[in-house]
């Protein structure tokens, strides 16, 4: 789980934040509600997770709430990893 959190967080920092961004992002930082990741960009984040973990996340479960923190994303991924 910790490795997964690290991987997801690293991807978010690399893809959605700029190098000199002062925002500190942690596993519990809001991503969608803070505007770091908007609802359209959520699609590419979802695609990254699906590719990385070879799973398919149903649209009805990939909600803004489920994607709002690294922790909530990893809970969803783990559910589908079985």
């Amino acid at each position, binding site marked *: 789980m910790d490795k997964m959190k690290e991987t997801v967080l690293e991807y978010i920092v690399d893809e959605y934040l*700029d190098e000199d961004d002062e925002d500190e992002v942690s596993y519990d930082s*809001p991503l969608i*509600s803070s505007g*770091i990741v*908007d*609802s359209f960009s959520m699609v590419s984040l979802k695609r990254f997770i699906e590719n990385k973990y070879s799973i398919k996340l149903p649209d009805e479960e990939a909600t803004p709430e489920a994607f709002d923190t690294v922790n909530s994303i990893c809970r969803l991924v783990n559910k589908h990893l079985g």
Partner: protein
Amino acid sequence: MSNIGSYEERMQNFDWEIAKDVLDWKEGELLNIGAICSDRICSRGDGKKTALIWEGFGDKSARYTFDDLRVYSNGFAEFLTDHGIEPGDRVCLFMDKIPSLYFSFLGVLKLGAIAQPLFSAFGDESLEVRLASAGTRAIITTRKHVRKVRKIKDRLPDLEKIIVVEGNPDKLKEGEIFFDVENSPRVEKFDVYQSSAETPSVLHYTSGTTGQPKGALHVHNSVWGQALTASWVLDLQDDDIYWCTADPGWVTGTSYGIIGPWALGATQCVLDSGFTSSRWYKFIQDNRITVWYSAPTAIRALMKDGNDLVGEFDLSSLRHLASVGEPLNAEAVIWSGEVFDGLKFHDTFWQTETGSMMITNYPGMEIRPGSMGMPFPGINAAVLDLTTHEPLNEAGKVGLIAFRPGWPSMFRQYWKKPDIYRSKFVGASENAMPDELRTNSDIWYVSGDRASIDKDGYYWFVGRDDDVINTGGHLVGPFEIESALVEHEAIAEAAAVGKPDKVNMEVVKAFVTLKPGFEPSDDLELDIMNFIRKRLSPLAMPQEIEYRDKLPKTRSGKIVRRYLRAIEWGEEVGDISSLSDE
């Protein structure tokens, strides 16, 4: 009693002069939107009334009176003037929905300059194209977004001033100016530019099928259309608390998120935070919002999160709902009636070019779920035959939505593109100039959308008449996406079309062929998606990429988007005899 009263009576006795009565306007008063939305409200004795209730992410919140609007917009106007900005200069506003966006918009208009608001999620390439086209002289932005400006500023010789209004001033680079209007001396008096009806006010960029985005130029006279529709369609009254969810980077966010409501002296709410259903419902509950103007994409996202969530909030303050951006499907209208205590969203149809609402559902009118409604009084609308361009009289027959020129909020030109402006009209002479076109009530302005009219006069949207992609209520040009796609190292050729989507109506799908040495893969798809997201915007990012060995082309080599689009929508592909066999 609604402001409009009887639609039928308004249709019979309409004159745009009524808008002046609604604002209690006297001949000879200054016609400047910046002043009308702030100074004028104070002059009539409402300076202490709340103008803006703002909430940001986290616990950030603020309230501003109309007197604050007056003083802070003066502050921006004076600051820009002191830095050499002159009437007619284009000043880009590139920031999230923070209070300074609203203050600076009014300030730019007060000094006679042209406000050029741009969606803050645009990537550096989208930003560059629009700033270069407009010859923008100054940009007002924030620490978060100034990085995109830094990447492109050396290629923009007209861009002389980069003003940062939020963040740490110590982090600015050489040539950037910091300005915090709320912590600067209050500017009680500013000599507002003596604009007239035809003085340019706002420049909004909009996408088309071909070429780069075009700047639709509006003038101060637009306020009459925006204020009267805000009164009659949104039904804004003195004690309303109004929420327009649109970003002022798009025309709804300026026409109905700034100009119309504040010209009337209404209290507005702004939520500058990412979308979640519970956050939106809480915002309505906490601020006792009464009138809510939103978009089908958001409404469908709320629907998706279910009825139980609605019940967790006290939304009893709501009294009137309206929607804009794309056709509002019947299911969403019916759903809103079920969960919002009988209140149904009133669909409204208009465009960047029209500047104000054109075909809408009115308070008190029978709503036919899925219908766009009927033309606003004073708007001469028709559906034209697809071939002859003659008005159709047969109920249910599909044609092009068109309007007779002459309404106050009509765009006055595409910035420095008179030929493209002329191409939007049918019946015009070959060399007609913009001023002739906008005043000629014998010709038609053609919207680019198709619809039919039923036997009772209700309009029913059918679809676009071109390849422009309407995603989440925003128009995205396929050409702009394709141009960016072929800049990716792996892509040889590309076509972008809209594909159906339950929430956003359409999303972008790209068809690509790869250069030698590149192989299709999921990782490459993600890389291409992110490439477009950063260069253009999240809206333009393809949500699906299909790899092909070749793309369908005409014999002259032009990629045939309509063929690909028809396949995505499960429609007849039509005549394909002109396609190349290659």
